[in-house]
């Protein structure tokens, strides 16, 4: 009883705390100076239409690097916790014939779509993360549909590691080629044409690496979750 009361009080208190935040809020009508600066710098310095991507990959690239690491950690952690105890066959229900054929037809398409998303991250909405997830969902589809489907763990790890290393090396390249403050600076490659695929310096490359990494990481998360350290 006392616990319910305290829970109620806690919820009430949280509401009370949020109250000023909500009350004083009014939707702004114009951008704040920092956002303005981002927009103009993105367009002018990086030649990148998608300002969000500009921020994610370049200005606040360090966050993204960290984010990729977080995902990497989750993968490692989940794999670590749910690693296979022994090698007994895992019971998995076979999907129906139609599903299997459909899946093996669709999956490559989905993966290609994922690749499209992350290579065009600097131009259109989406990017490495979204593309990575789409890729992973292609693999998920295969996993669901086909009993005998098993992808090479080594390959996944290889892709994951290499893309991660590549990402960091890209970041370091900026430092080496441009200057002291230029860790993660994509401008060591030419700006390129406005709205073309190979523009905005190294952004497409970086985002592709992120996409590959995220895709492989999420695939192995799915794989780990699916097997669940089954005995």
């Amino acid at each position, binding site marked *: 009883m006392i*616990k319910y009361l*305290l*829970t109620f*009080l*806690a919820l009430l*208190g*949280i509401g*009370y*705390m949020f109250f*000023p*935040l909500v*009350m*004083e*809020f009014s939707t702004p009508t114009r951008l*704040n100076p*920092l956002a303005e*600066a*981002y927009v103009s*710098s993105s367009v002018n*310095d990086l030649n990148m239409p998608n300002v969000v991507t500009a921020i994610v990959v*370049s*200005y*606040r*690239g*360090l*966050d993204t*690097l*960290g*984010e990729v*690491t*977080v995902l*990497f*950690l*989750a993968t*490692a*952690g*989940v*794999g*670590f*916790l749910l*690693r296979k105890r022994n090698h007994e066959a895992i019971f998995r229900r076979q999907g129906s014939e139609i599903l299997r054929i459909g899946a093996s037809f669709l999956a490559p398409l989905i993966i290609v779509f994922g690749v499209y998303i992350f290579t065009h991250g600097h131009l259109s909405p989406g990017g490495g993360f979204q593309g990575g997830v789409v890729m992973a969902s292609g693999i998920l589809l295969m996993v669901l549909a086909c009993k005998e489907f098993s992808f090479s763990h*080594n390959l996944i*790890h290889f892709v*994951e*590691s*290499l893309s991660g*290393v590549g990402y*960091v*090396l890209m*970041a*370091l390249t*900026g*430092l080496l080629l441009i*200057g*002291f*403050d*230029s*860790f*993660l600076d994509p*401008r060591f490659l030419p700006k390129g044409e406005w709205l073309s695929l190979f523009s905005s310096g190294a952004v497409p490359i970086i985002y592709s690496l992120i996409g590959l990494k995220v895709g492989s990481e999420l695939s192995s998360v799915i794989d780990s979750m699916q097997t669940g350290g089954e005995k």
Partner: protein
Amino acid sequence: MVNPMIILAMFLLAAFATALIDKLSRMLAIGTMYVVFALAAGLGAWQLYFLQSMPDAQTMVYSAGFPAPLSIALRFGVVEAFLITLMNLFGLLGGVYLFKRFKEHGAGAIALYLAMLLGANGLVLTRDIFNSFVFMEILSISSYALIGLKQTKNSLIAGIKYMLAGGLASALFLIGVIFVYRFTGTLNIDTWIAMGNIPSAAYLVALFMVAIGVFIELKPFPANGWALDLYQSADSGLAAIIASVQTGAMLFLFYKLLPLFIPEMLNIFAGAGLVSFVFANLIALRQKDAKRLLAYSSTAQSGLLVFVIAALYLLKLPDTIILVIALGLFFTNFFAKAGLFWLAGIVKQDNLSAWGVLKKDSGLLIIFGVFVIGLMGFPPFPAFFAKWHLVHIFTATKAWIWLAGLLLGSLLEVGYLMRWLGFAVKQEHPGELSKSFSKMLAPMISAIFLTTASFFLIKLYPGLGAFNVYPLMALLLFGLVDYAPAKLKGAIAIGVLSYWAWFMLLPSLPLMGQVFAVILVGGSIAQLFAFMRYNGAAEGFFPFLTMLVFSFGSLITASTTMELFIAWELMTLASYMLILRGKKAKDAALLYIVFSTFGAYLLLFGLSLMPSTYPGYPLILQAGFLSIGWVAALFATGGFLIKMGALGVHYWLPSAYAEADDETTSILSSVLSKAGVFGLLLILMMISSYVKSNSLSMIALGWLGVFTAFIGALMAARQEDAKLLLAYSSMSQLGYIVVGLSLMSHLGWVSALYMAVNHLFFKALIFMAMASVFLRTGTRNMYEMGGLIKKMPIAFISVLMGIIAVSGVPPLSGFGSKWFIYTSLLEQGRYLQAGLVFFSSAIAFLYLYKLIHTVFLGQAKPNQSHVKEAPIWLIIPQGIFIMAIMAISMFPNLITKPLSQAVGNYIAKPDWLSWDGYNIVLNSPALHGNWNGNLVMYVTMGVFIIPLLWLLLVNAKTQKVKQFNIVFAAERPYKPETTHYAYNMFAHYFKALGFWVEPRATAFYQGVSEWTHSISATLARIYTGNGQTYILHIFLYMITLYLLLGVR
């Protein structure tokens, strides 16, 4: 300068590539990780070096080629470089410790561990608030995942609790961040700070949420149930890193945010930190599980650090001071806490009392001792200096509650840590240690690092003289040769100490200092012979004995309050270790150290109120013209009185004296207590300008002394244990010294000092003789002995001389001290006090007779027929002290004149006090009297020798008879046990006076301890173990703080 991005990139590369490298070779993967840590630490050190040569160098680094706030900025200044070096060093050590785990679990574990350190490094470096969030998550998630190293039920549920708490904290943090962004339009911390405070309730709430997010990660009481379970159940190696690296990084983030907080917020966080410090320590007090205790202790320490940085920030102190203090605490805490967790992994025993297994490896035991003592803030560890300055700052700013909380928490901390140390040193346990090179390396290196750093710190600390290092050097050197035979070590120690005392100590001191040097140092050296009686190495004596004696030297020569306090603490520590060496001394030593620490804190507070002194001149020289306020004097006096065992705070004394090794007790009683006298005298000198004999305070002090003497004597008469009896006797005698000092007159101080010298002689003499008796009979209960006069005549003569001297019967010097006390008291008109002193000195006869009769006279016990005289090493000091007593009895001027001269430097000798040959003549208007010790000696010898000759003449041939040849009503006794009237000898006396000997102090302190434990137990109830309740705690805690903040 070093680009910190390189460090981050290095970690990332290694983490990402681990999976591949692991495929090649696991050892290579582990090796790569170690190399990364080493490189990162090296880069940090390099940066430190760089900044040292170029202090004004630019330390801000941007990413992506744009300046902040567009991009993310990192700062790599001095503090950051220091922390980076430290943390990576730690990462390396912790990594080595976890070597086996890595070998077992492979790439995943390695990558997670690397990422954890990456998160910590990033958190320290970054100046961007959202980036902090990201690194915080890296740090947290990697530690979450690593908990899976140990997949037990407890560890898994602890992991879930931890993740939920951490996740909620970061959610709060994130909401706060985004709202602050809304108000400031930036995410860069420096830009925020530059913008100043924004007058809006919503902004405040947002700020509060940012702060509380970080704060909850710092595990404040009571919203820290999850953290406790985590520490308790996680792998020790991991807990070590979480307690040190993770907490350190979070603390630094909190520190970075401080400039944003409004004063009310600082106040609340300081208060919450303090509450956490005090209460977590309080609950830790009753823990029996080592890792859970460490958990409480860790949360307490992080509470302390939050409190310190917030409080100091609130007091608007310069950043450098805050950092120096916080880093001092942090540095010690970092090494010690992690080290203790590591040791917990080696010991593998959860129950505190099982930590006795540490005894199997004395190296580990020493390491453990270093950590525990460092954690408590004893000198020379950095935490000591931090606490010293903290107390001074709080005193200067009159922050009394903070000061009280700080000291209270520290006292509780001392309580449980020392209890633990006691278990480790004293408790026997059959278990095994899980030792391996990789596991031993980390605690070993951190202990060495901590000690070395501390050693240099005290050596280089501004304003500390060389003398302060001697005790530590002695500890170290004698510790290194502790395997040598005791006789060799004893000889070396006596030689070195004598040389030092004669050629270095004495010449540097004024007369009064020399008097104390003779008492403290000389008295100890004479007793060192006794320790040479041990066969073999007798480990554990000489390092601490020499440390103790050297610390006496630094105490007397101290020229600043800091030097005084350092010497005092080192002295306490050394004596504690010596007491702890006794067979059953675990509890007694704990009691001693807790009381001593309490006293030390009183003293610390008193000292913090004192004016600055002139470094280079001994305080005892300066005391004559320094003047301090009465509050300072009151507290410092309290501290010193505890060491002297004054009535009311004497609770520790009997057990500590009784349970220490016999030779140690002798030093404790005859020498160590005089250190308290020294301190008290010092204080009285400093208030002599305005406090006189007839001041109320001094009359009260006098009564305190008198009652100490009275109750001490009564209690002594009641004991059956000879050491307890002597312990209470010491208490009683120190009461006389307090009375003498309280007189604030020339004669009074002379009498106190005379008593001090005398007490040294006769108490050491009796203790040495009794040590021989205990050694030979193997018991301390007097009624189990009897008739030993025939077996141990030398011991009997020593005790006889001793008790004559104690009782004050002429012609021995004891009468001199009685004469001085009465005349000085009567001269000042303290008639009633003199009356009670007389009563107590009469009671002394009771216990003295009991001592000598039941042990040496009466019926000899058959099971003690083998008893023989003690080894020569115990007899040498007896000889020295008998000669000393005879000398000053025969020629009192040897001592009375120098004492009078020494006191005369502070309180001028009155004209009415004069020496006429050996006759001391008192012609004060209030009192006439005289005493000619020399003549009394001759007369006594005359009246003794003449009847003796007569008796020898008429009764030369006496027939020796057997033991039972006594005239006994109609029947022959046949058992010495029933014929030896010894047990409860003064039953009738206590029937009459029972009221005065009821153990009130015992009842009081037991009550205090019981209450403390009950409160502790009640508080601990909030940790129900239910993860959901813990989440509720977090929210309720947050709301409480929010309401306290009172945002409008």
